[in-house]
């Protein structure tokens, strides 16, 4: 009862915060929608990174710290190879690289550590993180590189007749959203409808039982790390195209952490919804809450975007530790 009460309070508070700018007249409907959309678009990117986390956690109970490094590595690969060949070829080749990486990780890291404590595996993925960060720079270089998707960067105006001044929207953001949505649909089909998907869920629940019905653990791990690699690739290309491929990309992994806490470590829809909530929440807080706080407490400035996600995650941890869609309590990390 008490728990439900807390959840309701949290939900109501979030909703109130969300609609407050509109109701209080602090913002015009057009500007508000623009901020909302901007948040959703940013959220899609968080979702993509979080998706990689969830995939691997679902299938192996391992919190893969290296997901951010994989995003950077994939983006670097695409950016540098695209200098030598057409973009589509670079992307295809990068998919190959990510799959090869999955094989190597399974053989060198996961197989020797089978049946070890999740903490041991977490540490191992930390090792993979640092290796990938360094290795990527060794072979691809450490400058800022470009990925040109051939989509115009200029914002376009939409819904000009509905809102005064219309809404500015970026075409590449829309493309990213479509790509993410497609990826999610494919993954959902794969997990729910195929025997490999069923095997993946089985392995996630119980290694021993999965083995006893003839599911080969090693192959499953390669598949799931490959999937995570491909998701990382999509995230990397989208981020890279937007902001340039640079080391800071690997830090998005840290932004994806609140997302998975919010959505639940084992839920693909959770990663998506969590990403959107964080994305929208951040933007809303930055644009509407920060000025109010600055005025009320006589602060120097905003910067709320940097910590808002973590505070939100903390609140969720207190009230709903398994996240919005999580299957069970997070007792492993």
């Amino acid at each position, binding site marked *: 009862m008490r728990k439900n009460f807390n959840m309701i309070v949290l939900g109501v508070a979030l909703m109130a915060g969300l609609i407050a700018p509109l109701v209080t007249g602090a913002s015009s409907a057009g500007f508000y929608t623009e901020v909302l959309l901007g948040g959703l678009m940013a959220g899609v990117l968080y979702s993509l990174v979080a998706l990689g986390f969830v995939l691997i956690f679902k299938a192996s109970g391992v919190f893969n710290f290296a997901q951010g490094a994989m995003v950077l590595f994939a983006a670097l690969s695409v950016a540098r190879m695209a200098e030598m060949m057409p973009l589509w070829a670079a992307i295809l080749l990068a998919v190959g690289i990510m799959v090869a990486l999955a094989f190597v990780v399974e053989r060198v890291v996961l197989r020797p550590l089978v049946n070890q404590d999740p903490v041991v595996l977490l540490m191992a993925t930390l090792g993979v993180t640092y290796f990938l960060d360094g290795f990527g720079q060794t072979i691809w270089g450490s400058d800022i590189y470009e990925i040109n998707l051939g989509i115009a960067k200029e914002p376009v105006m939409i819904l000009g007749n509905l809102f005064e001044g219309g809404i500015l929207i970026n075409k590449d953001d829309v493309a990213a959203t479509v790509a993410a949505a497609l990826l999610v649909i494919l993954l959902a089909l794969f997990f729910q409808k195929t025997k490999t998907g069923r095997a993946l869920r089985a392995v996630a629940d119980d290694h021993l039982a999965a083995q006893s*019905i003839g599911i080969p653990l090693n192959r499953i791990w390669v598949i799931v790390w490959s999937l995570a690699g491909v998701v990382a690739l999509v995230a990397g290309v989208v981020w890279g195209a937007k902001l340039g491929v640079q080391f800071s990309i690997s830090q998005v992994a840290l932004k994806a952490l609140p997302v998975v806490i919010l959505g639940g470590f084992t839920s693909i829809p959770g990663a998506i919804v969590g990403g959107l909530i964080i994305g929208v929440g951040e933007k809303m807080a930055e644009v509407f809450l920060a000025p109010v706080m600055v005025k009320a407490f006589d602060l120097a400035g905003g910067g709320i975007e940097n910590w808002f996600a973590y505070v939100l995650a903390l609140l969720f941890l207190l009230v709903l530790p398994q996240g919005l869609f999580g299957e069970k309590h997070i007792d492993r990390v």
Partner: protein
Amino acid sequence: MGAGLNGGRTIGDVVLDLQGISLAFGGVQALQEVTFDVREHEIRAIIGPNGAGKSSMLNVINGIYHPQQGTVTFNGVTRHSVNTHKAAVQGIARTFQNIALFKGMSVLDNIMTGRNLRMKSSLLAQALRVGSAEREEMEHREAVERVIDFLEIQAYRRTPVGRLPYGLQKRVDLARALAMEPNLLLLDEPMAGMNVEEKQDMCRFILDVNDQLGTTIVLIEHDMGVVMDISDRVVVLDYGKKIGDGTPAEVRGNQAVIDAYLGISH
């Protein structure tokens, strides 16, 4: 009771032959030179006090443990050690002492995983539910439905297994193994922690599986009454060594067994 219920089937040739199995974990000798065989269609029990090596024996047959010495011959194929995947492909299924179900899934999905090895359609065909894949899925669903009917768990198809009471979870564990249509079924303490009624149900299911499906069964069980009632032959282990082997009546009369195990209650 045993002989009467098992009347319909005939015990065949040796299907599983274990020769001189020795297994050690560091300094602990779990199994020492254990030799016994299992015949087709029989119910073979492995008994012994705690720590006798019963579960280790099952894990050797199943390929989870790899013995340092000895050979395992199953259906004429002899091997030194085997992996779990191969064991499953060869038709060995098992249940677990501490239920090892996929807790996030429904009863139906859990049992469906038992069909995984038999599914042939390509990934894409399955995801898109193309004709042939759809047909295959239906066939497997039918096989699963037969198992569900057999074990009388129709009412729980869509329930996440984590919510089921213990006795029913054990039954789903058995259902998943049966969905593999195994030649050899390994049951690790199928009745542990059950009340009398649940035990009776489980006994009936084991005998039905053996009788109607002709499945060969190797089981570990602590409840002496159950073991003596349903098994055709019994192997007795103590401190990793075999100290008795034979029909329930023979084992009951074996002095070494009485000393090591049954003696406590006599």
